[in-house]
């Protein structure tokens, strides 16, 4: 069986695969292990967070700006307050890890001795290229534009996606030895037949690059533009001219892109769409941002005719929409032709959807029926055995990350095909069972913590520039926001062969997660991944899915370091809760060896002892005050552990004063505090 290995596996990967996914992960079309990378961010492990993200998403940086983040919509925090700002945290981690990311780039050899051509370099095509290069194939991408990235490069306006971010993704892929032939239109500059002949497999990843037009009178008037050519002209600086009053027809995300782009070119922009405000297919936040920028939206009007003067657009006649969807919920608008209105405009941009441009496949063996390529979703194969097809050209319009998912499937299919093992049922399935919502009975125990605001440039300023409008999190904010994660799916699990059903976990758990019968079982929908039970279990039968509970102890000899026996300044092991201390915890004097924790719930008596055993002279613990700790009961359990640790130290003639518990205030003055000298 040929299995495409995931390049990086976060801690607990194998266990997580067998259990229901966290809702964020399940909602992600490529099952990005959101919980894993948020946990890594929360302890300052940004490079590993990058690895988790990048392992399933070759256009991670682009997604960190433009993803519609279904993970956030699925976040279990939604039922408490607001979802975690996952996309933003992703952006933060990727920015932090950029040096590491570049240093990891390596050329990969064509060990398979086979060559694959990919037509189109959008999210799906890039994913196929990435995956097949990882598997040791020679990959060549044919791209009709001057830049790789498909719509990301040629249509998405830079105020939404800075091209440097996209370039990071592309550089990753190109560094593997993937060849790119730019400015090459298949069907014109090279025939598809030639590409098929020259390669062991071909992947069609052309996306939906053509805008649909409208069939209404005078649609061919001067000043009527189509969305994609308009956006592309703007992106590539081709000197597109639009009038002072621009009317955008459409209510989807591309329509918003068009409207906001036109706004940035200095026009007054109005949108007219069939749907009501609630029905508009564009994302709610995109609509809000557009409106902030002064874009007007006329809902429930349908275009009826363009009115021209001297061949130039003058007005658009619109008619009232009665309904957009029929009783079956299908798109089937009905109008009241007697209710009309006239909207003045000197430019009209039609943004009512896209379709594929299939002209490249003319005179090729590929079968096209009703404008669509014939293909098998079980194998991603077209009617020609060595030609595969991926992304929106077959799935229809969707998100970038959904196209990535399709790309993963296709790359896997190509690989199996080239190994002679392709048959239906072998492609990756991203539909995974997820953990239930937070049970009602414990909602009261989850403290509301508002989402850290994402700052945008002032609308009046941002609509004058194509600069990116969203300010990224700084480290302090990122650590705080990451701390809001409830760690769904990353919680406690019991090794039934060690458990003797002593009930300790049940007594300790503030959320009632364990059910103890012959052995303890911890219900994942209840578990908040605080880890209290782990440190209390007398049989050490409980571990955490998402982090290695022994890691702190195992790394301590290195963290605390080889010590100079003649040292004048004491060496201090600092167990710091990163949610509380934030960045300051990473900026301490040399003699404080910081061991970042997501919460002191994870700090065990053993860890404290081990610190002394490894040569620490003192131990400093920094934790949230009771009222701000993200978990319940931590204070009680922590003080019990602390007093036990002090007792044990006394037995070893180590003064209990060698352990100090600090507040945030004191951390600010770490350098001055006598404890550290």
């Amino acid at each position, binding site marked *: 069986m040929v299995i495409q290995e995931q390049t990086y596996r976060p801690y607990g990967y194998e266990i997580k695969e067998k259990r229901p996914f966290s809702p964020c992960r399940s909602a992600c079309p490529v099952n990005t292990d959101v919980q894993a990378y948020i946990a890594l961010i929360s302890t300052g492990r940004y490079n590993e967070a990058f690895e988790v993200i990048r392992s399933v998403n070759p256009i991670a940086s682009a997604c960190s700006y433009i993803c519609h983040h279904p993970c956030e919509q699925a976040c279990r925090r939604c039922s408490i307050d607001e979802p975690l700002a996952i996309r933003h945290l992703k952006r933060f981690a990727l920015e932090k890890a950029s040096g590491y990311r570049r240093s990891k780039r390596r050329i990969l050899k064509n060990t398979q001795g086979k060559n694959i051509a990919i037509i189109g370099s959008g999210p799906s095509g890039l994913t196929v290229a990435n995956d097949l290069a990882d598997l040791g194939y020679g990959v060549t991408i044919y791209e009709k534009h001057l830049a790789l990235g498909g719509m990301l490069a040629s249509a998405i306006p830079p105020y939404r996606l800075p091209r440097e971010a996209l370039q990071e993704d592309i550089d990753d892929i190109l560094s593997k030895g993937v060849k790119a032939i730019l400015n090459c239109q298949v069907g014109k500059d090279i025939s598809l037949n030639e590409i098929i002949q020259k390669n062991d497999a071909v992947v069609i990843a052309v996306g939906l690059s053509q805008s649909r037009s409208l069939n209404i009178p005078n649609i061919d008037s001067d000043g009527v533009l189509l969305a994609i050519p308009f956006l592309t002209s703007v992106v590539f600086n081709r000197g597109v001219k639009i009038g002072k009053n621009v009317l955008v027809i459409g209510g989807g995300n591309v329509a918003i892109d068009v409207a906001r782009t036109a706004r940035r070119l200095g026009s007054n922009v109005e949108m007219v769409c069939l749907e009501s405000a609630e029905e508009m297919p564009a994302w709610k936040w995109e609509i809000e941002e557009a409106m902030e920028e002064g874009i007007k939206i006329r809902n429930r009007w349908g275009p009826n005719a363009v009115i021209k003067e001297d061949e130039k657009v003058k007005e658009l006649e619109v008619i009232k929409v009665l309904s957009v969807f029929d009783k079956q919920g299908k798109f089937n608008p009905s109008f009241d032709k007697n209710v009309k209105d006239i909207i003045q405009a000197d430019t009209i941009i039609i943004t009512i959807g896209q379709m594929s441009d299939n002209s490249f496949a003319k005179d090729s063996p590929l079968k096209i029926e009703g404008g669509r390529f014939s293909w098998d979703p079980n194998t991603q194969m077209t009617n020609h055995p060595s030609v595969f097809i991926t992304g929106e050209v077959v799935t229809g319009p969707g998100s970038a990350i959904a196209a990535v998912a399709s790309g993963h499937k296709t790359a896997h299919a190509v690989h199996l095909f080239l190994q002679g093992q392709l048959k239906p049922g072998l492609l990756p399935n991203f539909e995974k069972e997820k953990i239930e919502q937070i049970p009602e009975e414990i909602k009261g125990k989850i403290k509301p913590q508002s989402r850290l605001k994402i700052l945008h440039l002032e609308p009046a300023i941002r609509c004058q520039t194509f600069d990116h409008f969203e300010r990224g999190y700084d480290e302090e904010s990122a650590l705080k926001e990451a701390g809001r994660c409830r760690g769904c799916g990353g919680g406690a699990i019991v090794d039934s062969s*060690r458990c*003797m059903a*002593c*009930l*300790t976990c049940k*007594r300790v758990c503030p959320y009632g997660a364990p059910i103890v019968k012959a052995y303890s079982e911890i219900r994942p929908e209840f578990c908040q991944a605080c880890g209290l039970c782990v440190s209390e*279990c*007398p*049989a*050490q*039968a409980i571990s955490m899915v998402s982090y290695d509970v022994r890691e702190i102890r195992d790394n301590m000899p290195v963290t605390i370091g080889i010590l100079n026996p003649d040292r004048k300044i004491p060496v201090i092991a600092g167990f710091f809760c990163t949610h509380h201390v934030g960045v300051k915890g990473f900026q301490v004097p040399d003699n404080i060896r910081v061991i970042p924790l997501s919460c002191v719930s994870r700090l065990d*008596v*053993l860890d404290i*002892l*081990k610190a*002394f*055993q490894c040569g620490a002279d003192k131990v400093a613990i920094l934790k949230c005050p009771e009222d701000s700790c993200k978990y319940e009961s931590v204070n009680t359990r922590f003080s019990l552990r602390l007093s036990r640790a002090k007792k*044990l130290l006394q*037995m*070893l*003639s*180590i003064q209990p004063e060698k352990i100090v518990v600090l507040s945030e205030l004191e951390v600010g003055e770490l350098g001055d505090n006598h404890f550290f000298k």
Partner: protein
Amino acid sequence: MIVGSQKPFDEIWEMIQSFKKILVLGCNTCVAVCHAGGSKEAEILSEMIKVKAKQMSHSIDVNSMSVMRQCENEYLDEFMDNIKSTDLVLSMACGVGVNFLSDKINAVPVYPALNTSFYGGVPKEGLFIELCAGCGNCILHLTGGICPIARCSKSLMNGPCGGTDKGKCEVSKDIDCAWFLIVERMKLLGALEKLYDVQPPRDWSTSFHGGPRKISLEHIKAYEEQQGGQIR
């Protein structure tokens, strides 16, 4: 279950300090439940020994591990190579485990890290109370489910002694008078008159006074005697 508590660390150190290679062996059943000798406590103790050894400039190689129960062959067997390759096993089991393991390995000393205390119950987290003395001749049906052997300081069989005082024992105000409890319980059960039956002197031979005890399942014993070997 069997309840134990750890010996004072100084006492443990005295016992073990001359050994070079020590295995701290946890026992993951009864003494784990009372947080005295499970896997976790074994690891804590081994860390303490390491710190102490460093302080004393002793070079001691200390490891810890644990088994489900130290009082049964099958649980021990897979770890015997580990157990035998050490200079000393510091057992975190109750006395049963220490004995059992000592008998099993012979050549390596097995020292107790715990004082085995009693058979007890767990009324709440962190509290363990003695409720049975294992005397081998149960009379709880006569005393309302309260054992005078285990819970009366004098193990009296026919009512309280003169030291009973407002429900407390003369030994300590922290000890309930078992016979006071028995009388109250019998009232509740409507069986107070049962206490008028005088209990004859007890036969203590079923208790430790008859020497170490052994129980064989009759049918297995009979089979083995017939076959002339161990059942398998």
